[in-house]
């Protein structure tokens, strides 16, 4: 195959192949490293170096301003183990990740299935479903804060209009509901990408298999469960990992809508990190929390990929 390609390719004008033939193997290796170098430099500068710095900071009691950082070993991690608010934030994160991922997956897959047959107005539907994804988090946060507002929010007004006035409440101010209220807004904002990925994956589903299943008497649910879903496995893995990582990193919508309140009922690890590091000048402790967040995110993502790979074998 390679030989054919070489023979069919016209010789490059004005360029001799002789120097390439004389090139030593070491030269090629150097060239390869040189090509990789810019990306590696960017990665090292913006990912590896901050990560190493975070590890170092987590071992200090730095307040973010002092020129000297006092090394305290694992003191911040010991403190973290006994910090009830940290465990509460972690619990909120787990709810957020599990519920948020499941909800976003279900809704985006459902929407993708609805437009799979490319109905009239497909482009409009696709645009509408994807639009929340491109909205800045600040806009999403503000708009949903208005929707939930106890003073003029359309949710409470809508409930009152249909006779469910007793259900209305200050959604973001009630510790029992606030986390779920923000989560709904966040899911709404993130389903766009999952929807696009599922829409693209559905185009590759083998129609012959579907037809065969239909001929064999498989119902709609059976065709979906046993024919469509297995062919979406790669997309499902990708979306799951993206949503899980996004879930662990959740910050912006919560910060804009509740700042972790009321009474810390929407406090997540990322918001707690920010609060400690930047609002309470406890940068060392904040770095320790952020490291836990990073490790959790990595472990869960790797576990999902491994499980998926094992399932594919």
């Amino acid at each position, binding site marked *: *195959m*390679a*030989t054919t*390609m*070489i023979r069919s390719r016209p010789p*490059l004008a004005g360029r001799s*192949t002789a120097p*390439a033939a004389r090139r030593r193997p070491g*030269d090629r290796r150097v*060239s390869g490293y*040189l*090509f990789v170098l810019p990306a590696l430099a960017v990665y090292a500068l913006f990912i590896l170096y901050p990560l190493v710095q975070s590890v170092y900071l987590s071992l200090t009691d730095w*307040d*973010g*301003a*002092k*020129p000297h950082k006092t090394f305290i070993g694992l003191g911040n991690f010991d403190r973290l183990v006994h910090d009830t608010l940290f465990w509460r934030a972690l619990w909120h994160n787990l709810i957020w990740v599990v519920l948020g991922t499941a909800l976003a997956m279900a809704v985006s897959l459902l929407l993708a299935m609805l437009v799979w047959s490319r109905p009239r107005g497909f482009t409009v539907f696709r645009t509408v479903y994807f639009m929340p994804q491109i909205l800045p988090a600040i806009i999403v946060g503000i708009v949903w*804060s208005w929707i*939930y*507002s*106890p*003073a003029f929010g359309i949710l409470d007004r809508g409930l009152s209009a249909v006779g469910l006035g007793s259900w209305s*409440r*200050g*959604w*973001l*101010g*009630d*510790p029992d509901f*606030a986390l779920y209220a923000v989560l709904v807004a966040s899911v709404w904002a993130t389903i766009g990408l999952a929807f696009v990925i599922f829409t693209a994956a559905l185009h590759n589903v083998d129609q012959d298999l579907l037809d065969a299943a239909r001929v064999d008497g498989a119902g709609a649910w059976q065709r979906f469960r046993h024919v469509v879903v297995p062919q979406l496995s790669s997309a499902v893995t990708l979306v799951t990992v993206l949503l899980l990582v996004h879930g662990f990193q959740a910050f912006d919508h919560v910060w804009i809508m*509740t*700042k972790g*309140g*009321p*009474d*810390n009922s929407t406090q997540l690890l990322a918001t707690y990190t920010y*609060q400690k590091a*930047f*609002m*309470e*000048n406890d940068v060392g402790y904040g770095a320790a929390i952020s490291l836990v967040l990073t490790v959790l995110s990595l472990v869960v993502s790797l576990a999902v990929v491994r499980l998926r790979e094992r399932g594919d074998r």
Partner: protein
Amino acid sequence: MNIGRRTAPGPSRRDFMRLSGAAGAALGLSACGFGRSDGGGSALKVWDQFTTSPQNEAVRKVYDLYRRSSGVTIDRTTQPGDQMTTVGKTALASGTGPDVIYYEVGKGNAGVLAEAGLLLPLDDLAAEHGWLNKITPFAQREARLDGKLYGLPNETETTALFYNKTLIDKSGLTVPRTFDELLSFCAKAKAKKLIPIAYGQADVYPCWWAFSLMTNNIVGGRAMGDLVFDGKGSWNTPQMKQAIQLFFVDLVKAGAFIDGLNSLHGPDAQSMFLSGKALMNLNGTWAVGAVEKGLPGQEVGIMPMPSIDGGDRVYPAGTGSAYYISAKSKRGEEAGAFLDSLYQPEALRVWVEQGKIFPPVPFDSSGWSLSPLQKQALGAAQNGGGDATRNLGYSVNHGKASPGFLNAMTSGFQAVVQGRKTPARQADDLQKAWEKGR
């Protein structure tokens, strides 16, 4: 396969060198100044927090006065307080940040910068320019850290209840003067489908204002100053528990606020007041400009919390933020002159008349164009509307209040309103957070 790879077309080493050269040239050009913002290195870099109208325009005029008198250009950057707290530390530590920064006063804010040696002590400059004879003692207390003057406070802020007299009269109600009257006022207003007090505590700070109003009335201004600045006293006394009980439990039960006040943001509460849905608004004198603009032609006044058990009515006061000079600034002299210019008579008039801001220095406002509400706010800032020793107090979120204490107030008062915490437990938690932050 190997042959194919070896002869496949692609960038050669020479191409790579060309690309590297182009990238290097681009980097070199950018280093020479391409893409740099206006102002650059020849101007005095000033960072402030005056992002809203009309303060933003007034501050621009004040800075312009300095530019015209000194010939020094000002490279001004404005950002909200939250952002300033986050970015300011890093910027000052880097040495490439502002020469002058308008930063929140207090142990947990500017105190952190001072302790890290990032701020220039201003005692020498204060002596040179005679600031100590001008700045009111309470404002100096705000800007001092460990006995040294670090900041130049430029605005006296008092927390207050704004009331719409026109609307209250129209509703057949009277402005309450005692706390019992306030409870009755709330019940009557609610019966008329009006919101008695526009107040929400979704943001971190409104509950600090509310608590300040209550504690100063119950404990007294001087005692609050001793507690907040010198740590004399405690937060879990019966009076403190009463303050929490009255506002965060009794007023809530009396229907003073909308349901779900934990989810109402400060600006939204202000909007309710400006739209005529609420009779009062718990706010501060910094909102005078916005209130006048939003309620034209209506009689609006400010007052402290109604009297509790016959005690004095006290306006909690504070300076909010102050101007500080970076210890790494190479323009210390110019920065000092800039700070001094902020208190010059011409600048004072702009601060007060146009910015609706009251610098904590004596000034004669006769002949100035001030609205009745501005005059009232000015009186509140200068002497609490009566006797400064009895009617002017301190804000609970200043002085030695650590970030942990501030956070304990916000989350705790939200929990009290929800009935998840008793006033007694909240008072104990405040005391614990206070001791931890010392």
